[in-house]
């Protein structure tokens, strides 16, 4: 059952969106988020939605996959929508007790819900089209400047990629431990939430112990392969900006700047 979990979902493909440098895509997401938070009117939202739709189209990620990405945050979206709908003061259209719906409330609710949905789906486009390794590579290079102020950028990126590498291994191990416990009569399905949480303890203890042992062995194996930190490391597949990366970034900057300018001039 745990095998169904996919983290950092990546759909391999060969579109322009897949071939773009991960740094470009990361920067694009930052621009996109800035644009989303600056968008305020029908026109600017329209621009952002159009930008999102173009990106989704280019990356050939199915609508279903994008909508599925919204599932975990469905509750937050509903909550935000309802709160804004009922509790925004303004020109009341309907009132019942302390609940009221105002014209401004409707506008606010629509805006907030759209913003969250676009935010989630947009960032999902990034993880759908970029493999975890390239993503961490991109992050390491983008944040490289922070090394000057002693932020351990390489170490953080290495930790992230090792964590990603061990997710399937640990999931497999969890499955094994659960089967072993079930074979000896452990019950993980019945009972209330408290009981279920308590039943997890006998799984977590061996899982943690083995994770520490793995970490120990991995550290020795890495040392044996001459790992000595990020200094002087080279890459098998170094990141390189291509012409398409510059053009994509220019487009991103133009769209975001456009949205900000439109907002300034009151559109």
């Amino acid at each position, binding site marked *: 059952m745990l095998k169904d979990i996919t983290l950092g979902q990546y759909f391999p493909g060969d579109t322009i969106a897949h071939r773009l440098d991960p740094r470009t895509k990361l920067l694009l997401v930052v621009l996109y988020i800035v644009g989303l938070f600056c968008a305020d009117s029908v026109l600017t939202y329209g621009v952002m939605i159009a930008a999102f739709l173009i990106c989704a189209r280019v990356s050939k990620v199915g609508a279903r996959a994008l909508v599925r990405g919204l599932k975990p945050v469905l509750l937050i979206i509903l909550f935000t929508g309802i709160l804004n709908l009922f509790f925004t003061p303004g020109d009341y259209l309907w009132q019942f007790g302390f609940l009221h719906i105002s014209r401004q409330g409707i506008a606010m609710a629509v805006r907030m819900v759209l913003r969250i949905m676009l935010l989630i789906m947009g960032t999902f486009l990034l993880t759908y089209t970029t493999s975890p390794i390239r993503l961490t590579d991109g992050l390491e290079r983008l944040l490289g400047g922070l090394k000057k102020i002693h932020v351990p950028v390489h170490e953080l990126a290495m930790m992230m990629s090792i964590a990603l590498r061990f997710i399937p291994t640990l999931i497999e191990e969890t499955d094994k431990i659960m089967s072993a416990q079930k074979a000896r009569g452990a019950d993980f399905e019945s009972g209330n939430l408290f009981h279920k949480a308590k039943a997890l303890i006998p799984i977590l203890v061996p899982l943690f112990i083995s994770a520490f042992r793995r970490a120990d062995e991995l550290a020795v194996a890495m040392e044996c392969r001459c790992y000595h930190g990020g200094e002087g490391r080279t890459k*098998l597949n170094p990141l390189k900006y291509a012409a398409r990366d510059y053009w994509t970034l220019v487009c991103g900057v133009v769209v975001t700047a456009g949205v900000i300018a439109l907002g300034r001039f009151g559109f």
Partner: protein
Amino acid sequence: MSTILETENLQYLYPAVEEGEQATVALRGVDLKIEKGTFVVVLGHNGSGKSTLAKTFNAILLPAAGSVRVEGMDTTDEARLLDIRRKVGMVFQNPDNQIVSNVVEEDVAFAPENLGVPTAEIRRRVDTALGAVGMAEFAQHAPHLLSGGQKQRIAIAGVIAMEPDCIVLDEATAMLDPTGRQEVLSTAHRLNREKGITVVLITHHMNEAEDADRVVVMDNGKVAMDGTPQEIFTRVEELRNLGLTVPDTVDLLDRLRRDGLELPLDALTVDACADAVAAALR
């Protein structure tokens, strides 16, 4: 032939974990010289010190007394640490715990990346290493979807990419099924034969020692026996006293001899054993 690994009165002890406990002495004076290009199997039962010995070969563990030299470099010399580790590659028991990346070729590239090898050269080494272990077609695969034997061959490729002179396999076959074990063994033999890489194979499977150039038997932190497989395995009684079983072929020959058949004891491989038995019965 020149010596690649040399230990002199090598001693090592694991410090006590809790107060009041005694430190565990793992190695009590090991003198060993391993010649370049040979295939050496180190045998011993659990706790004989064979894995500890392996870990002193590339400065993962430093001697408490005595010394270990890799091509003349002392392993306590910190300035030469990377040189030593580059020359002596190490493969461990659990393949899952030594694979760093979730793409095969990226994992094989890990060591050359650490050594600061230029990109084009890394590409060449990765391709050569994957070819040498017969895993070239899996370059883009995710390691966790491979079989145990395949994972272990990836781990070997990751070590070969350093272009070492010596590979130490520390119980690298212990967790594998018979097919996987065979894959790893034949890979090690091929590397030894074709590339002249010195192989030190640590194991407790007697059968893996059949084709070795030399067998070293460890017991209680010391070298108990040292010689060619033929010399070692014919000393059946001694091996049994050390808590080791002899290979099935030797066991069979030994029993038939006790029953009065005229047989040699040093027919180690199955074929040689069958021939010997057939000849005796004729």
